[in-house]
């Protein structure tokens, strides 16, 4: 057996022994996701056991170096672990913006002490992070952001407002874009890290068309942010006034994540499932709808191949640096289409907003939620602008 085959068989037995049956069920609601943080509670013993088993093994962040709480897996090994977890539908043991967003930024731009301090906390699920990017006046034009940190020597005093801050009301710390130089648009932003319990920081949930409130408005009213949290641990990532570089890097990362390039629900075909579902309810799929489902499945399966190709190319540096924008554009548009078709195939049952049969209106709420896919993390229109400029190199601003 090759090393990788050995790793696969070991992983398979480890998962068999350590992943409880309840953790192999699809995620149904927010409580099924373990986000960690100061106020975290486990939904049940299985969730706790699964998290702790992964923590011990470094599998909350398998590809991070061991020194920062990961398992230090090679990319090929991490792929095997993902595949094996996918095979048994294992839930992620820990979900967090710390893992998805801040972690990659720190790994690339952080100091050694910063990595040890913050990455360890993230890997152990001790601190739950939120992302302070968009502002009421700065959506697609993010770089025009106005939240201002006034330099007071050893600290800043931050004033301003963020919006679309995911789960800000449940988070412990924020990574936040703050203007520190009003004269320079691009080189006047600092990527700050601070505690949401600081005096003057407050949040207000935003109710969405889906009826849910995953996002908040976040207010900073004279929030005092120290410039350092100890020897070698600055309160910002990268350099002061150069936070836009970090933000741009992270946006690329976020687009990749939202694009569903790693596979999963967003890239699977749906026609067969729609037919099975219709058979259960005594419905029939209209021939014209069947044709649309078939055309969708062609696009979805082709996009699945694209996701695979994209990840393969990223690993060896073959992908165009702006390619995540294309993946994000195509992936989110596809996902919106998927949910339109699922609503149609489900008929009047899909309209139910609170019924037990629909698990509290899952079809319609999920359908509405997908409409944000092509807005958050850069709208489809912005993605198309970026493709035009950076990949096709079309003229103009």
């Amino acid at each position, binding site marked *: 057996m090759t090393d990788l085959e050995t790793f696969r068989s070991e992983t398979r037995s480890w998962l068999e022994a350590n992943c409880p049956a309840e953790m192999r069920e699809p995620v149904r609601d927010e409580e099924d996701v373990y986000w960690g943080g100061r106020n975290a509670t486990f939904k049940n013993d299985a969730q706790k056991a699964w998290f702790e088993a992964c923590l011990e093994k470094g599998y909350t962040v398998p590809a991070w170096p061991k020194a920062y709480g990961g398992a230090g897996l090679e990319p090929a090994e991490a792929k095997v672990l993902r595949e094996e977890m996918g095979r048994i539908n294992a839930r992620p043991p820990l979900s967090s913006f710390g893992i998805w967003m801040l972690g990659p930024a720190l790994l690339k731009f952080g100091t050694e002490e910063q990595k040890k301090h913050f990455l360890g906390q993230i890997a152990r699920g001790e601190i739950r992070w939120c992302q302070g990017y968009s502002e009421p006046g700065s959506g697609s034009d993010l770089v025009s952001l106005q939240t201002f940190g006034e330099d007071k020597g050893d600290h800043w005093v931050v004033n301003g407002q963020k919006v679309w801050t995911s789960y800000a009301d449940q988070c412990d710390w924020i990574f936040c874009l703050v203007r520190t130089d009003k004269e320079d648009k691009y080189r006047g932003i600092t990527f700050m890290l601070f505690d949401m319990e600081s005096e003057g920081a407050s949040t207000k949930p935003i109710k969405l068309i889906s009826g849910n409130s995953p996002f908040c408005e976040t207010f900073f009213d004279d929030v005092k942010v120290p410039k350092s949290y100890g020897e070698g641990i600055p309160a910002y990532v990268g350099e002061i006034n150069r936070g836009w570089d970090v933000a741009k890097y992270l946006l690329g990362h976020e687009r990749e994540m939202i694009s569903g390039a790693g596979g999963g629900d967003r890239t699977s075909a749906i026609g067969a499932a729609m037919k099975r579902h219709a058979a259960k309810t005594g419905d029939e799929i209209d021939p014209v709808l069947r044709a649309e489902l078939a055309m969708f499945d*062609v696009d979805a399966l082709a996009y699945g191949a694209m996701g695979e190709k994209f990840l393969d190319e990223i690993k060896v540096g*073959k992908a165009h640096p702006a390619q995540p924008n294309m993946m994000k*554009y195509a992936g989110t548009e596809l996902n919106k289409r998927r949910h339109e078709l699922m609503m149609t195939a489900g008929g009047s049952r899909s309209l139910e907003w609170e019924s037990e049969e629909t698990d509290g209106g899952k079809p319609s709420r999920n359908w509405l939620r997908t409409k944000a896919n092509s807005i958050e993390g850069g709208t489809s229109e912005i993605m198309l602008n970026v493709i035009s400029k950076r990949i096709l190199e*079309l003229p*103009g601003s």
Partner: protein
Amino acid sequence: MPLYHDEDQAMLADTATSFMADEGNIAKQLRHWRDRDCPDGFGHALWKQMAEMGFTGMLVDEDDGGLGMGHVEAGIVLEQIGRNLTPSPFLTSSVLAATALKHGSAEMKGRYLPGLIEGESVFAVAIDETAKHRPGRITTRAEKSGNGFKLNGAKTFVIQGASADMLVVAARTSGGDEDNDGVTLFAVPKDASGISQDPVRLVDSSVASHIKFDGVELDGDAVIGEVDAGRDILNSMLTAGRVGAAAEGIGVASGAMDMTIDYLKQRKQFGTLIGEFQALQHRASHLYSEVEIARAAVIKAQQLLDAGAESAELMSSVAKAKVAKSAGLAVKEGVQMHGGIGMTDEYDIGLYMKRDRALQEFLGDAYFHANRVAEMSGY
């Protein structure tokens, strides 16, 4: 296997790219033969050159004198054929017929393969009987007659049929028109008596025949594989041909797209380059995204086919359908964005639109393959 070309494949791509651009370009081949009303629609000299490059026998096993390469490699050549709109027998001879001949007897291989590898012979495939691709139904019949067979029926859309030295014909030797069993493939020499060809020029300047078989007498050794067991061979030909056509389609799509993007960077109206207009930028970027995704589906299908994976069938239809959609978009946007000159014969963009139309139809269009995806997925 990662979904990109390995080192050898990347080298082959470089070679194929420069060879087809130098020797197979539109002025030298497509326009040249079209404007001379050439009855073949392609140049035999180029076919010989392709043989010298080692292209013609790529898919032929090494034991049979070929290079024993796979569909990723054949696809590399096909993409450049597509990009240059190069008329050639490659897809029908070196992919479809070569796939059929893998199942032929040693004697049959000895009769046909050297000519293919040398670029001396051209083969055609006679599968379709109606204007829409429907290989499930085969009514052309071959009845036992002495030690051989007597072939009766009609085929259509036989690309380069009149130029071919040999036709691979799918015929029924038993059972009903739509039965899976009872199909036999024959290697029919061009001069067999009772064949009448009606070659017609198509929109893309290629030439295809309507062929009638009227009591064509065939020896028993014209059978490819086993009598009544030709369906599997036919299916493997179709899968190889569809993946090949998809690869050529990607070449057509990216050729048309690149030409259009270049034009957006040159053409000025209202005192500014039209590529500065967001209305066009967004459409161009959407097109780029669709072509990239189609390209991924094609290489995935090629790799699955080379690995002998069961899912190659499904992915071949995904690739053919996705390429049809994105190449269709590329040529339509291409002509529209070129404006008036896009409608002129002098500019090449219209040639891409014509080739795409013919290629879409070959071995099943997007609707045929989307339907097949649905059927294979169980709905």
